[in-house]
Each structure stands twice: as structure tokens, then as C-alpha cells.
């Protein structure tokens, strides 16, 4: 089944595109989709542990099963760590 992955910030730069059409097996966990992508783009692997996931504009856990036509967004983690709360 086809799903859409939208990429932002560091993920967009690593992959070199802002959107991917991906063919995955039904019920694939969104976290497993990122793991598969990280095999193609090893630079994503380090970042993937702290990545949050959104499906159809709602946050979901890594175990969330994907459905045909879903729009997935990987929310990249903070680079460098530390306190990044800004203009407070």
C-alpha cells in the first residue's frame, strides 16, 4: 500500500527531498518505516531514537500501524541536545 512521508528540517536535508511516496505492507508500524528509511539513509539512524511521529497531523506512538493513504511526518529531534527552549 502507498503512503506519503513528508520530511522537514534535518530529515529533509539528509534525504534531499521534502516528500516521499513509499510502498509498505499493511499494518506496518510507523517506527519500523523510519528504521527502514534509516537503512537507506544511515545519517537518519542516530537521530531516529528521539524522533516523534505524526500520522495525518496527529502525534502517534512508534507502534502505530499505518493504513493506505496515510500521511506520515517524522518530527526530528533536537540536534546537539540541551535546553533549546527559546525566546521565553
Amino acid at each position, binding site marked *: 500500500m502507498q503512503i506519503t512521508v513528508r520530511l*522537514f*528540517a534535518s530529515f529533509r536535508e539528509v534525504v534531499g527531498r521534502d516528500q516521499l511516496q513509499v510502498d509498505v505492507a499493511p499494518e506496518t508500524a510507523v517506527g519500523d518505516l523510519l528504521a527502514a528509511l534509516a537503512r537507506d539513509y544511515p545519517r537518519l539512524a542516530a537521530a531516529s531514537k528521539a524522533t516523534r511521529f*505524526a500520522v495525518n497531523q496527529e502525534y502517534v506512538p512508534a507502534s502505530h500501524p499505518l493504513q493506505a493513504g496515510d500521511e506520515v511526518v517524522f*518530527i*526530528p529531534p533536537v540536534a546537539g541536545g*540541551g535546553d*533549546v527552549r*527559546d525566546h521565553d
Partner: protein
Amino acid sequence: MFAITTEPIDPRTVSAAVEDERAGGLVTFVGTVRDFSRGRAVTGLHYEAFPEMAEKKFREIADEMRQRWPICKVAMVHRIGDLQIGAIAVVIAVSTPHRAEAFAACEYAIDRLKSVAPIWKKEAYHDGEVWVADHA
């Protein structure tokens, strides 16, 4: 008014959007680009967002506020693109019947925006640049 924009934000416009005859207090928070971040001098900033989801989250945050305080009106606007030091990145305005509620609700709004809005920024320094999450 719940928006991601590439244009400079005029805080007066955002504030005017929440004027309300029922309100006795109107608080406007203006977030600007600081010249120093985590010990490094920042020379510029690039903001990026997932606009549709960010605007949806702004509306959800406003709903949360209405459940907690007697909100009259709320407005939230965040700018994306290249911003100079001192530029306005985000403006949140809240009006309520009494001032204490307006201060509390406005602080809640910026904290929640930082927590859930899919917005990122790339800080540029004299010797490089790095993506950081605008959300905490």
C-alpha cells in the same frame, strides 16, 4: 487568527484581533530572535514548519485554553523563513475578563506551542549551522 506566515509579524495586528468588549485584560507575548543560544553567538536563524499541522495545533491549544480559563479571544502567529537577530518570530495575544487569566493563559499558550507545534529552526553561527527544535 491562527497562522504560519513568511511575512514580518506586526504585534499590533495580532493584538487587535483579540480585542473584545467582554475583556478586561489583553496580554500579548512577542518572541524575538536572540543573539546568543546555548553559549554560541547566533548570526541568523531560519525557521521551518509543517504549516497545516502547526495551525491545527494552534487551534487545539486555543481549545485547551478555553477549557481552563474564560477566554474571550486568542490569536497565534508564527513566522518562518530567514530571520535576523531581533526579528519577531512569534506573537500570541489573549483577552480575558480579568488580567490574571490573560497572563496565565498566554504563558500556557507559548509553552504548549513550544511543546507540540511542528516548527524547527536552524541556527547559523560564524563557524557553522545546526538544526534545533523550536518545540522542546
